[in-house]
């Protein structure tokens, strides 16, 4: 059973009622509710199409943050074989908000790195809700470096509310760790492809999304600041997050239009959290395409391609 979001309340009612009718029929074999239930199903489906066909930017934030949305760990399980996690920054700790390691993607050895938010209370705490500390970025630097030296493509999955704003994280150089991770991802001579699968939260995301090819799931978001944070600064009212989400242009559709991402990966109707496997497979297909696109480019060309891509982001924007 899906956890409904506030804006899905009418949908929850219809789907609930249809479920009730079916339960009634199961308990009283003489009553036939199938026609009624089917009518409600059709109504629910239409409503879902309506809701998800026109999600506002704020609603997309909610969908992107939905606790049942597939997370990095789910993608790794389904899309990769021989996944061999590699841990630690060789300096201070292993950050569980960042997972990564060697794996095979369609039989080819790769390095996969991503934020992991956790899926229940225990794992969420262990994963720090996907908010990395410097050790997470330094682990990623290590893994990217390793991939670069041994010619392995790097696949990153971005899903973080942001880098962790904590005392220890600052003490140990959060800024420097993020800056170095971005630098490293610009330096390596193998293909880097990246997918924003949920939340692309600001500087904490950018170090993992500095790729040759960047895709986003249809309802994922990627932003310089959370709508709540932006609202409290610019509107002086955190409750204005809907307006802020609108103004920030943080949806996959906006980012495509602004030339920041290369492709949008369609989600199953009702969002990735309703049909996780379909969503994961769609991402797998996109990763394969992006890698294919970079095939045959040597180290120099790949680095040049990445540089060019970011250098070009100084003149973009919507037409006046």
């Amino acid at each position, binding site marked *: 059973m899906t956890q409904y979001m506030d804006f899905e309340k009418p949908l929850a009612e219809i789907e609930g009622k249809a479920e009730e009718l079916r339960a009634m029929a199961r308990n009283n074999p003489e009553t036939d509710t199938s026609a009624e239930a089917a009518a409600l199903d059709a109504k629910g489906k239409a409503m879902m199409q309506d809701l998800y066909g026109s999600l506002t930017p704020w609603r997309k934030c909610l969908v992107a943050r939905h606790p049942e949305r597939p997370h990095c760990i789910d993608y790794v399980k389904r899309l990769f074989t021989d996944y061999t996690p590699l841990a630690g920054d060789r300096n201070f700790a292993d950050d569980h908000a960042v997972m990564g390691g060697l794996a095979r993607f369609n039989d080819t050895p790769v390095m996969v790195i991503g934020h992991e938010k956790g899926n229940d209370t225990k794992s969420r705490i262990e994963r720090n809700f996907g908010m990395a500390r410097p050790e997470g970025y330094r682990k990623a630097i290590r893994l990217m470096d390793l991939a670069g030296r041994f010619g392995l493509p790097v696949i990153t999955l971005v899903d973080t509310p942001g880098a962790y704003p*904590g005392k220890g994280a600052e003490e*140990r150089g959060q*800024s420097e760790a993020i800056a170095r991770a971005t630098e490293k991802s610009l330096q390596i001579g193998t293909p880097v492809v990246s997918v924003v699968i949920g939340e692309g939260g600001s*500087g904490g995301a*950018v170090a993992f999304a500095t790729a040759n090819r960047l895709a986003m799931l249809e309802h994922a978001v990627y932003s310089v600041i959370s709508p709540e944070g932006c609202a409290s600064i610019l*509107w002086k009212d955190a409750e204005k997050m809907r307006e802020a989400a609108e103004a920030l*242009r943080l949806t996959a559709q906006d980012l495509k239009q602004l030339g920041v991402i290369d492709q949008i990966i369609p989600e199953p109707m009702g969002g990735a959290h309703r049909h996780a496997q379909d969503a994961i497979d769609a991402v797998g297909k996109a990763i394969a395409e992006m890698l294919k696109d970079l095939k045959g480019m040597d180290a120099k060309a790949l680095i040049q391609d990445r540089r060019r891509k970011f250098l070009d982001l100084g003149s973009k924007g919507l037409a006046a």
Partner: protein
Amino acid sequence: MNWINNYVRPRINSIFSRRETPDNLWTKCDECGTMLFHREVSDNLNVCTNCGHHMNITPRDRFAALFDGGIFTQVTVPVPNADPLHFRDQKKYPDRMKAAQKATGEAEAMLVATGEIGRTPIVACAQDFTFMAGSMGMYVGNAIIAAAEEAVKLKRPLILFSAAGGARMQEGILSLMQMPRTTVAVQMLKEANLPYIVVLTHPTTGGVTASYAMLGDVHIAEPNALICFAGPRVIEQTIREKLPEGFQRAEYLLDHGMLDRVTPRTEMREELINITRMLLGLSPAVKGDLPAPDPVAKDPKPAPAPEKAEKPAPAPSKK
């Protein structure tokens, strides 16, 4: 006796500050509250003469004090799309922009210049905290790239003075993209084997700290500058505890290995000259302010602050 040190610096500084404000204007130090003569403060590079507190200084004033004879040539920065997202909060972005331009007299939040310090040719760029909190948007990205390209072209070191509240929210994702973009600029310098020195000034925060400001060959901060990724208030809200005194300040970062040095603004110029000259394998510079370089400035555009830039510094003499 070192006559240059003793006489030239005050003279040159006073040329630049005297013009702008009447002699009898007072400034209150925001740290110790002492009332100080405005001129006294500006002659001291906006450092409180009572408590040593470093107040904000504009890029133009900083450059006037940094470069030999106060002479520098502004590097043109490509102007990006003025309102790439059609952003509107309580105000429209272009209106905020116009207000900032009017208040500062500057086009944007970063100034790029070429010139000499202790007869050492350099490229410098400085972020302007008074311009929309120095925030990094596409213009600041363009400025850093222009500075790096100029440095590579002229084979000069780049000295960058950072000061920013972070990324420019009104440019959304495009401001965030300046993090990798400016990192490319830093890579250009490193590949050309040119020194890249970052002077972190109050405050340097957010995406600015987490990109070009933390990628220098040498990191020097001004005393007590706030330098962080997440600001203290955000952290206090997250961890629900009060942060210790001095947390995320320059001295604290020095202790935690993120900086090479913390240096008072009044000693910064000498230090930058020393460091750049040593990195470049040059002999020690003549100490103190030097007269402006010969006016062979082939660079096309002199700095548009005519009183400052066009007056060649007269031969040094005692007061």
